[in-house]
């Protein structure tokens, strides 16, 4: 019989088949009165899987007790804790000691054999099942049997180790195959299902949800979840507290930003956690949040996974194991671009991109009008948009009463029904019997024929993000249906048209936003390109000029030499700009440490002024400076030079061409807190109040600056501010609009005050 047990060790058996095979062998070997096999569930209880009884069990109370046993109490509890065989020789005594919970009064002695294995997620051995052999009074285990149990236990555990590890390995391979296989043209939902199927075999999960990321408004929207029932309660979309998560204020949003999988345990579920009621109701305690990232590293969404494992808070190892497991999952989900094209909703960006292409085409608006016509079940629909000229232009039209000649259909706001609808917030409803009442005031003569053909008309506004009207949708004549009143719109129709207008308005404002961003990008690129190319262009023109002269064998004059020298300062400026662009791409030199030394600021500023002297004299800008009593400070010479150069160059560059006496003033002083302050003032074109904060952001330029000097990278001030931040100082703007003076204050922090007080000096 032992031999057969040993045969099990070498044969390939599934873990599922093992209990019944083992039980058979053990019953033959030990001849117990009662034998039970319990499997440990994830929620840490033991559930009976196999039962052998020599005599039938009649007590219904005991029957129930047989089924589920806790893992923390009694003999099983001890076996779980010690992973040793537990022998109870005197059940009566053990019961008195409180370490035995009897299930049958006849049992006199019992042996609990723990079966343990290494779960693929954890490093430690865990008891996954127990075998309990019981004997009734008068049929005690013999000494020989007791010894045999030890031996049998080790064989059983070896069998399990083999089978279990083999199975885990298979699962693991299958899982990786599933998440890394070529997804081809499968849709997002199919992929999610496939992923879930393989995942559930590896990590037992209670609940998994998929959220998609919309980068336009920085929100996550739930797309699907699995399963539909959790802890015997039905899950619907309504069960969730929030179906849309703001990435700024949610835990999942943090993952979108960090792009790294993270485990949120009970202690993490702060006020940022968006679904507390949901988690409470379905008994979900901790979750793993996995980002889905495309091949370019852009976040596409997240998967929230609620594992069905003992609470991870006390088991950091398990946590580590899961996150190690989950990160290949994140990178393993390779979403081909093909997938996006098929799944429009998933790629909101591309959807709007496409809309953006169409937005100026008449066919798009005609199509939209016919869509609205179908939805509203009406005879005609027209969509009008205001094009900034104070008139309403027909963009798209459909149906028999729609105007085919687009050019002629122009409405004035507040004139006729359409114009009226443009200026009124609430929708307008017209029935043919009101014609007399409306005629003249609300129905323009021009449109009499359209109104004449209509039994009823409804019109509503289309608005932009600030709820300002931008257009009108008009529907004429409800399609006649036998059951309804012939050809008239009802209140329900008005409501649905309002909903449609809401959708069009949202889509339109998004498209406009997108268009604006696109324009901004183009503008920045153009001006940056221009900034870099302009000096090169100048240099080239001089080389060409020299070539031309040399070809005619003329010698350059002194004035020509001066021109050449000027070009060298152009080159220097260009190099500086390239420097700045590169730095801005590398996040503004954040990682470059400061190379500190004691600096005399007046000297640095003098060098910068020398660089700018030519440009200033050409523009007739007077540069004045005053640095009385400014002590030496500790800072990075090169980086601070850049700050001064940028500010001074801006002051010279943005001088007002209409100003008679143009000046740039640099003042160095010490404020009341003993801090060094350098101020650069000018009476140039100035900064508008609404631009004051914006100009310090990357790629942002002031309105005035753009008006007079379209070329400019919009990087200079952002760069200066970042350098000042690194020095523990500040860069601020003060605009005196009455005296027309703009001042930039460089305030150096207390610590870098003077050389004498600095740590370097000590």
């Amino acid at each position, binding site marked *: 019989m032992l031999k057969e047990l040993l045969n099990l060790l070498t044969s390939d058996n599934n873990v599922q088949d093992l209990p019944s095979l083992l039980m058979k062998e053990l019953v033959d070997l030990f001849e117990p009165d009662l034998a039970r096999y319990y499997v440990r569930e994830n929620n840490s209880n033991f559930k009976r899987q196999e039962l052998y009884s020599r005599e039938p069990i009649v007590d219904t109370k005991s029957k129930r007790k047989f089924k589920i046993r806790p893992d923390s109490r009694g003999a099983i509890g001890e076996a779980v804790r010690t992973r040793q065989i537990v022998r109870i020789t005197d059940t009566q005594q053990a019961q008195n000691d409180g370490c035995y919970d009897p299930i049958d009064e006849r049992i006199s002695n019992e042996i609990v054999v723990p079966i343990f294995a290494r779960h693929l997620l954890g490093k430690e051995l865990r008891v996954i099942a127990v075998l309990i052999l019981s004997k009734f009074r008068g049929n005690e285990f013999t000494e020989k049997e007791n010894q045999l149990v030890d031996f049998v236990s080790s064989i059983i555990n070896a069998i399990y180790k083999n089978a279990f590890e083999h199975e885990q390995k298979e699962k693991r391979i299958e899982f990786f195959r599933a998440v890394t296989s070529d997804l081809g043209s499968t849709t997002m939902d199919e992929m999610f299902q496939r992923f879930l199927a393989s995942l559930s075999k590896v990590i037992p999960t209670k609940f998994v949800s998929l959220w998609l990321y919309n980068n336009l408004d920085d929100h996550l929207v739930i797309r699907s979840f699995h399963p539909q029932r959790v802890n015997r309660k039905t899950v619907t979309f309504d069960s969730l507290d929030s179906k849309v998560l703001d990435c700024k204020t949610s835990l999942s949003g943090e993952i979108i930003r960090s792009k790294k999988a993270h485990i949120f345990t009970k202690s993490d579920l702060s006020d940022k956690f968006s679904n507390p009621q949901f988690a409470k109701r379905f008994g979900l305690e901790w979750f793993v949040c996995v980002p889905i990232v495309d091949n370019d590293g852009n976040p596409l969404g997240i998967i929230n996974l609620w594992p069905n494992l003992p609470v991870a808070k006390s088991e950091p190892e398990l946590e580590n194991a899961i996150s190690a497991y989950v990160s290949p999952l994140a990178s393993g989900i390779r979403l081909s671009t093909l997938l996006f094209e098929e799944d429009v909703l998933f790629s909101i960006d591309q959807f709007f991109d496409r809309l953006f292409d169409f937005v100026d085409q008449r066919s798009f608006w005609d199509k939209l009008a016919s869509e609205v016509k179908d939805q509203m079940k009406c005879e005609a629909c027209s969509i009008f948009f205001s094009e900034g000229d104070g008139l309403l232009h027909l963009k798209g039209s459909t149906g028999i009463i729609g105007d085919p000649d687009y050019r002629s259909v122009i409405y004035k706001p507040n004139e006729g029904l359409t114009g009226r609808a443009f200026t009124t917030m609430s929708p307008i409803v017209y029935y043919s019997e009101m014609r007399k009442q409306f005629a003249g005031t609300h129905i323009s003569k021009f449109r009499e024929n359209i109104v004449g053909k209509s039994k009823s008309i409804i019109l509503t506004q289309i608005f932009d993000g600030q709820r300002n009207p931008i257009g009108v949708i008009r529907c004429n004549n409800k399609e006649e249906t036998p059951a309804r009143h012939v050809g008239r719109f009802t209140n329900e129709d008005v409501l649905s048209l309002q909903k449609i207008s809401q959708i069009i308005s949202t889509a339109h404002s998004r498209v406009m936003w997108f268009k604006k961003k696109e324009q901004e990008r*183009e503008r920045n690129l*153009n001006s940056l390109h221009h900034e870099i190319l302009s000096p090169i262009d100048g240099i080239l023109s001089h080389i060409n000029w020299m070539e031309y002269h040399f070809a005619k064998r003329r010698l350059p004059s002194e004035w020509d030499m001066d021109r050449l020298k000027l070009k060298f300062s152009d080159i220097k400026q260009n190099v500086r700009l390239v420097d700045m662009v590169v730095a801005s791409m590398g996040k503004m030199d954040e990682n470059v440490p400061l190379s500190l030394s004691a600096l005399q600021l007046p000297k640095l500023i003098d060098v910068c002024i020398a660089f700018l002297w030519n440009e200033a004299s050409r523009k007739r800008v007077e540069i004045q400076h005053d640095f009385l009593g400014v002590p030496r400070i500790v800072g990075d010479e090169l980086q601070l030079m850049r700050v001064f150069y940028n500010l001074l160059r801006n002051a010279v560059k943005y001088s007002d061409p209409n100003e008679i006496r143009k000046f740039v003033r640099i003042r160095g002083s010490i404020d009341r807190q003993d801090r060094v302050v350098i101020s650069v003032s000018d009476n140039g074109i100035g900064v508008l109040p609404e631009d004051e904060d914006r100009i310090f952001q990357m790629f942002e330029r002031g309105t005035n600056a753009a008006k007079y000097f*379209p070329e400019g990278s919009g990087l200079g001030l952002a760069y200066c501010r970042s350098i000042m931040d690194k020095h523990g100082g500040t860069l601020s703007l003060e605009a005196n609009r009455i005296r027309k003076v703009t001042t930039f204050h460089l305030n150096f922090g207390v610590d870098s005050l003077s050389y004498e007080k600095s740590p370097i000096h000590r």
Partner: protein
Amino acid sequence: MKKVLYIDDEADTLKMASVFEVIGEEGIELLPVSRIGDVHIVINENHHEIGLVVLDIIIPPEEFYGLDETNGGTTTGLRLLKDIREVLPKVPIIIVSVRRMNVATDEIDRYEISEFIEKPVETMQLLQVIKQHLLIA
């Protein structure tokens, strides 16, 4: 020979002086304009003498055009083109700009742009193109 209207915000700088000097020595008379407000004045004064327009795209719109219609001044030249075409419908126009992408193909067709030169510009290349178009005109 007819004159060349050269519109570039840097037309009054030393950089352009080198270019203009070479073009001038080749016997071509230039009308350099650096500020957008002066374009109409110069065109009015020399309406019948202008045989060619060379136009930069990135020009400060100043008070004459809005920042929206010129995309922050980076397409001022295209906006100006529309106005120039109204008064000089037949004159060949050469665009000089940093990126060809700035000008959409339909705009090239609509305003009948004769040539597009990308910066940085070789003076001799510019000279050749100017001569070519002036002769045709």
